[in-house]
C-alpha cells in the first residue's frame, strides 16, 4: 500500500489519479512527492501528515495521509 494524497482548494488540479493509494519509494519526503507530481513548492503553504503539521523535509511512510493546501485564511 502507498499513501493517501489530498490536494485542497486551488491545488486540487494537481491531484494524481491514484490519490487514495499513491505508491512511494524509500526515502520519499513531502518535497520529493511534490516534485514528482509537478506541484510547485511555492504554491504549497500548509502541509499535514496524519493531522500533524509537516514540512517539505518530512519523510513519508506507507499508510500516511498527506494533506496539501495553498495559503488560506478565515475566522
Amino acid at each position, binding site marked *: 500500500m502507498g499513501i493517501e494524497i489530498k490536494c*485542497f482548494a486551488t491545488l486540487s488540479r494537481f491531484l494524481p489519479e491514484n490519490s487514495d493509494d499513491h505508491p512511494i519509494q524509500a526515502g520519499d519526503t513531502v518535497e520529493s512527492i511534490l516534485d514528482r507530481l509537478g506541484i510547485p513548492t511555492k504554491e504549497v503553504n*500548509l502541509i499535514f501528515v496524519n493531522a*500533524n*503539521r509537516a514540512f517539505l523535509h518530512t519523510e513519508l511512510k506507507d499508510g500516511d495521509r498527506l494533506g496539501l493546501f495553498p*495559503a*488560506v*485564511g*478565515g*475566522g
Partner: protein
Amino acid sequence: MPRILRINTRTKEYRFEELGQYANLGGRALTSRLINTEVPADCHPLSAENKLVMAGGLLAGSTAANSGRLSVGAKSPLTGGIKESNSGGLFAHKLPKMDIHAIVFEDKPESDAPFQTLVISTDKVEFKDAGEIVGMDNYPAHDKLLAEYGDKAIVALVGPAGETLRQTATIQFTDPYKRPARSAGRGGTGAVLGSKKIKAIVLDPASNAPVKPADNDAFKTARKTWVDILQGHPVTSQGLPAYGTAILVNVVNEAGAMPTKNFRYGQCDHAAEISGEKMAELIEARGGKVKEPCHTGCIIQCSQQYNDKDGNYLTSGFEYETIWAYGANALIKDLDDIATLDRICDEKGMDTIEAGNALAIAMDGGVIPWGDGKTAIELMRKVGTSDALAQIMGNGVEFAAKAFGVERVPTVKGQSMPAYDPRAVKGVGVTYATTAMGADHTAGYGVCQNILKVGGDVDGLKKDGNVEISKNLQVATAAIDSMGFCLFAAFAVLDAENGVQAMADLVQSWTGNSFSIDDLVNLGVNCMKDEQDFNQRAGFTKKDDQLPRFFRTEPLPPHNVVWDLSEDELQGAKA
C-alpha cells in the same frame, strides 16, 4: 466635527454632543470606553441602565480599503460582561456623512410600550411606530423599510429573537446588495436593543455630506500602500476571495482540530461534503456569487451568495463558523440545510455560532436526533414565537444545557466556543479563556500561527508560546477593531513588514491627529484594559478566565491532547 448622538428611548429626547473624553477613540476603543465609563458594571443587561452604542472606526467614512467595520457595544445579556460585537455592512461608512461618530441608546420605555423605528438624519431623530414590521423576519422587514425610505436607506434592525429578548439576538445591517445580511452577531446585542423597544434604525439617505482626509496627499499615499499590502498577500488576495472562510473546513479538519459532535472529536467524517470547495462548486453550478464585498471598499471579498437548488438566492456571508457549528458540531451533512439554517439565523436575528452550538446541545440532550437538519430547521424557524423549545434555543448554549440536562457545555463566561478546539489550537484557546468577550475567536485569532502559518509558526498542540501570541493578537485585534478595519486584514499585516505603519499612516492622514505605531498599540492595550476593568467590577475573576473542566480531563482525538494551561499561566495574556 463628528458628534455623539444620545437617544433616550423612554422620553424620546435626543441630543448631539461633542466627543469630549471620547475624542481620538473609534470603534471598539470608543464603545468599550463608553460602556466602562457610563454603564454600572453590576446592572442587569436588559435594564434601563445598560446602554447600547454603535461606533464606526477611526477610519469610518474614508476610502481606505476594508475600513468600514462597525462596533456595537453594551453589557452582554449572554455573558453578563462587556461586549463589543463587530459587523460589516454599510452603517459605519454612513455615520460620518451625517457628522456622527457614535450613537448611544439609553434608558428603556415601559414594558408595554410599542416598538419604534428611529429615523436618523444629520440633525434630527424621529421616533415612528414600528407596528407594521413587528414580528416580521428581517428580510421582509428590511424590504418594507427600503420601500418606505428609499433603497439608499441604510438600516439596522432586530428580528423576532431581539424583539423577544433572546440572548443570542443579533442586530442585522444593510449590506451592499440591500439585504440585512450583516450581523453584530455575538453576545446578544439585539436583545439590548429589543429591551429598549427599538425594532429598526434608518439612516436618512438624504444626509450625505462629503467627508475628506485631513491630509489628502498623505492619505492617498498611505491608501495605495495599504491596497498593495492586501493585494500582495496570498490569503487576502487569493485564498479568501476564492473560497471564503469556508476553506477552513478542510484545513481545520486536516489539522485534527475541528470540533465534532459537541466537541467530542477533532475530525469530521463528512468534512468534504460541507467544505469550502464543495460550497464553491455548488455556488458556481447554481449561478450564485463566489465572492462579494461585505462593505463599501472591501477588496478582500470573502463573502459569497449561495443559491438554493432552484437557483434562487438563499444566503450570503456563509462563514466557516456557521458551517462548522451546524455541519460538524451538530453533524448535519447537507449544505443546503446548513445554508437554510444560516438564512433562518439572519431572518430571526440570531448568532449562528451560539444557535448552532445550542442545537448541538439539544441533540446531545436527546431533544432532536444528531444530524437531523430538517427537524433543526423546523425548530429554529419558531424562534421569536411562544414555542417553549424555540425560546430555549434562542437563549443559547448555557441556558439550553440547563434546560436539557447536558453537562458537556463548551463555554467561557457564558459564550460558546467557535470552530477550533482549544485542546489542539491552544493559541486561540488562550483567547477563549482570557478575552473579556467570553469564548471568541475573533478577539485573538491564534489559529494564524497554530494552523495557518501566518505571522509565525507556533505549535497549537503544545503550551509553549501560545500565551504570548494570544496576548499580542488580542492587542492587535482591539486596535484593528478600533480603527474599523476588517480583521482579515491582519493576515496580510502579520506578514508584511510595513503593515502596521501603513495602518497608522492611514489614521494619521485621515484624522489629522498624530498617530504612531505606539499610539496604535496603546489603542489596543487601553481598550482591553477598559474591558477587563468593567468585567472585574461585574464580578469576573481569574477563575472565569479558564476553560470548562472537560477540556482538561478528556483527550481530543486524533491527537489525544488536553487543555493544560493553568489559571495563573493564563493571566499572562491579560493587558
